[in-house]
């Protein structure tokens, strides 16, 4: 008998779909038939069957609740809603069939019944789903802002950043291992949702392990279940985190292994754990050192880019990760000052401008002020003398100017010292006095005159 009870209980998830099917069918048929009411007999019959199957679903559901040891609090809403659904189904049968028992509801239109019934059915189903799949199953894929707007707790990813100067001082567990586990494991192994009885958000949870296996085996990653599970091939069922969830990176896995091998210390710094710098390289804060400012900028329209490409000027995003553009006249040596107006539709987005080898003159240099985010400027092999270069002082991001082969003059060199972010100036093959300054602003602006030489040496001509 006990076996039968258990078995029937386990059939509950199957049987519940029977009343759901009947009731939805009944509702649809009623909607279809709402004008002529030709099928009232059929739909009432369907509701009757729906009610009978719902009673079975209730019974099996109760058996499952008893047999599987659910807490009453977990299932109570599903239980009451399920029983209500069964009763409501008979009510609908009675109403649609026009039985005397429901004459008291005569004034209420059947459509109101149907809507209430549909809501009740959905609620019951949703409650059931929450029990089997977990309460956050449905909302989990939603973006964080929608989740919090709906009043659900959101999972916060923690960034792992080390400073190159102080990396050895960072706490091995607190600053590294804990955030790694938090970002990749804790969403399923936390006090609310404890898959496999495993908690990974605290030291105690990690040391205790899950229901089945000891999790961390001291000082050896080869026999550590944690390491084993995250390094299994993706196709294996045992692989953790499961397919589709955020996976730890290669560097993070390596670090976890090294941490386990070092005796998985929960206290102390990296230095005390005796781990090598190589393990941490990927966590170091990377300096922004690209050809565009470290700010966000709005995208320019495709049409304005196309319009500029039409006239033979090369325009491309610096990378897909930024809206800053690289503009080059490499295919248009005839570019002259007046052509510059055409670029102004992109003025905020141009961070790299290559006008090398074109017809531009000093008059253009002044106009470049209109590109507030210009970072790299190439004016090599032009007739620019530097007369108007002072105008560019207001460009707050400009870090490199290439004036190789231009007509730049020595007297204008000092003006560059007032440029706020300038780092490199290339003046090879100009008339600038190369014996002059090699750097400006206490070495912050490096000037490269080039003219490197490789004088002949005796071995040049020795043939063995």
């Amino acid at each position, binding site marked *: 008998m006990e076996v039968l009870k258990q078995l029937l209980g386990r059939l509950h998830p199957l049987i519940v779909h029977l009343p759901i099917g009947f009731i939805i069918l009944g509702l649809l048929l009623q909607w279809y038939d709402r004008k002529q009411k030709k099928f009232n007999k059929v739909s009432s019959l369907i509701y009757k069957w729906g009610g009978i199957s719902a009673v079975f679903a209730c019974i099996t559901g109760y058996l499952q609740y008893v047999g599987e040891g659910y807490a009453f609090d977990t299932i109570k809403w599903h239980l009451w809603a399920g029983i209500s659904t069964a009763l409501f189904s008979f009510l609908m049968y009675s109403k649609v069939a026009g039985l005397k028992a429901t004459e008291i509801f005569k004034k209420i239109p059947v459509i109101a019944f149907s809507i209430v019934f549909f809501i009740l059915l959905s609620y019951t189903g949703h409650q059931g789903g929450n029990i089997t799949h977990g309460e956050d199953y449905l909302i989990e894929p939603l973006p964080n802002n929608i989740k919090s707007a709906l009043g659900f707790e959101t999972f916060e990813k923690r960034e792992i950043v080390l400073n190159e100067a102080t990396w050895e001082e960072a706490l091995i567990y607190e600053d590294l291992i804990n955030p790694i586990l938090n970002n990749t494991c804790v969403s399923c192994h936390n006090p609310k949702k404890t898959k496999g009885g495993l908690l990974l958000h605290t030291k105690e949870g990690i040391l205790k392990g899950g229901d089945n296996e000891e999790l961390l085996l001291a000082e050896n990653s080869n026999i550590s279940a944690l390491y084993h599970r995250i390094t299994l091939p993706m196709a294996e069922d045992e692989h953790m985190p499961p397919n589709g969830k955020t996976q730890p990176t290669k560097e993070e896995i390596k670090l976890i292994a090294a941490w386990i091998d070092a005796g998985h210390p929960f206290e102390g710094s990296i230095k005390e754990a005796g781990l090598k710098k*190589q393990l941490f390289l990927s966590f170091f804060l990377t300096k922004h050192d690209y050809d565009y400012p470290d700010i966000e900028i709005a995208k320019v329209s495709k049409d304005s880019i196309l319009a500029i490409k039409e006239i033979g000027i090369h325009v491309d995003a610096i990378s897909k990760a930024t809206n800053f553009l690289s503009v080059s006249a490499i295919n248009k040596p005839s570019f002259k000052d007046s052509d510059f107006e055409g670029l102004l539709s992109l003025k905020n987005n141009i961070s790299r401008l290559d006008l090398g080898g074109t017809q531009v003159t000093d008059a253009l240099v002044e106009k470049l002020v209109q590109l507030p985010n210009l970072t790299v400027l190439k004016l090599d092999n032009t007739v620019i003398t530097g007369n108007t270069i002072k105008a560019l002082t207001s460009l707050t991001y400009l870090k490199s100017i290439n004036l190789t082969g231009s007509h730049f003059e020595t007297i204008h060199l000092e003006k560059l010292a007032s440029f706020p972010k300038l780092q490199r100036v290339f003046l090879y093959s100009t008339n600038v006095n190369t014996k002059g300054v090699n750097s400006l602003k206490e070495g912050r602006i490096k000037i490269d005159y080039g003219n490197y030489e490789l004088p002949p040496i005796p071995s040049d001509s020795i043939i063995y």
Partner: protein
Amino acid sequence: MKDIVKRLIQEKLALETQEKTRRHFIKSCAQGMGGLALSSIFMGCDPLTSSTKKGPITLSARDLNPLSTLAPPFAPKVKSVIYLHMAGAPSQLEMFDYKPELQKYDGQDCPQSLLEGKKFAFIKGTPKLMGPQAQFKQEGESGNWVSNFMPHFKKVVDDVAFLKAVHTDQFNHGPAQLFMHTGSARLGRPSIGSWATYGLGSENQNLPGFMVLTSGGNAPDAGKSVWGSGFLPSVYQGVQCRSKGDPVLYIKDADGITRDLKKSTIDAINKINKEEYAKYADPEILARINQYEMAYRMQIAVPEVMNINSEPEHIQQMYGVEPGKESFANNCLLARKLVEDGVRFVQLFDWGWDTHGNVRSGSIDMGLRNKCREIDRPITALIMDLKQRGLLDDTLIVWGGEFGRTPMQENRGNTKMAYKGRDHHGDAFTMWMAGGGIKNGTSHGKTDDIGFSGIEGRVSVHDVHATILHLLGFDHEKFTHEFQGRPFRLTDVEGEIIKEILA
């Protein structure tokens, strides 16, 4: 009788038109829409699904011009790459990997433990160890070792980052070169340059995006596959330029054909092609039109950029060029000119580094020294020249061979060789990189006391590829091309970025 039938049919039609109201029309429309929607849900053998292609064809810039530029996924550190390949495999032990301990064991038998399970191309039995045949000195502020075979190079030693423990799993030239350039020792994969131009395109519309220059008298052993496009469209393969005669074969107009006549010929062909395109809307036709136009523009641009005589005298002397000859120095100068003109990937192959000791030109103490002299000045000049023009920040230079050479003297057929030589060795060899994004003056990796194997910081060929792609703005694990039912990568399933040499 016929009349009656006709009348009946007419009557039926008349009735139908009366019956069919607007309501019917809308209803059947709705059903039709439902059917259409279903057909896209149940994709498969339904011929309706192919109807989606019948809409107006939207052509990307790539359809029109396969070399049009694309932004890389991540901010790039370099825009161009110059890859210097010393075909035949240079001896790291006479150039950059200084092993004073090896000198102590010079002439002694190689320990058996090192030879067990190893495959060599020619070494048989028990070979003898051979000490370094060059004198080494620590150079520059970085204090990295450079031998007296490379006397000029010491001037730029602080501008490069060494990889001292690169390893490969191939020990014959052909497969090893293929591996080094395509990520696989088997034929059929695209080369690094093909991947780069496929992913990024090329800025200069008058020049190919991937150009190859060879020197040393022979093409690389692996043949043209080392700059082939594999399964990528063939437009991304390397264009080999000759340093003697016409840089690209058949680039000159045929005798009696003037440039104007050529132009009108191409215009006529393209006119027909455009008509054809109007009829069939096949993007391949547009690509063809574009290729004709590009070839026409190349006729002017290529001879111009390939002419080293236009360079000033002092630059020619700095590189040590030999105009009119095929030389590595000429190619280095050309590489700079090409990169300056926006070519994405320049591949240089210099043949003649296979120093087994069987002939004088293939000896460690003489032939190798000559080869080193041939590259020493040009490479140093190339780095300096790119630097003074502000181009080194945007360019990556990679130097290396397909593998390294053994710490043992070669004993081909278990006999004493005529000259001092070393056999092929893939366990540990040296490569270096210079340019944008590289931490100048670093040296990553260490070999054991005799330079047989890497003991620290070992990097594989895939790691080198991952690093090159990283500097160009790609994630080597995500940069794939779908072929034969699966996505392919340059680094296959391996490769890790060598962070230690990145700035």
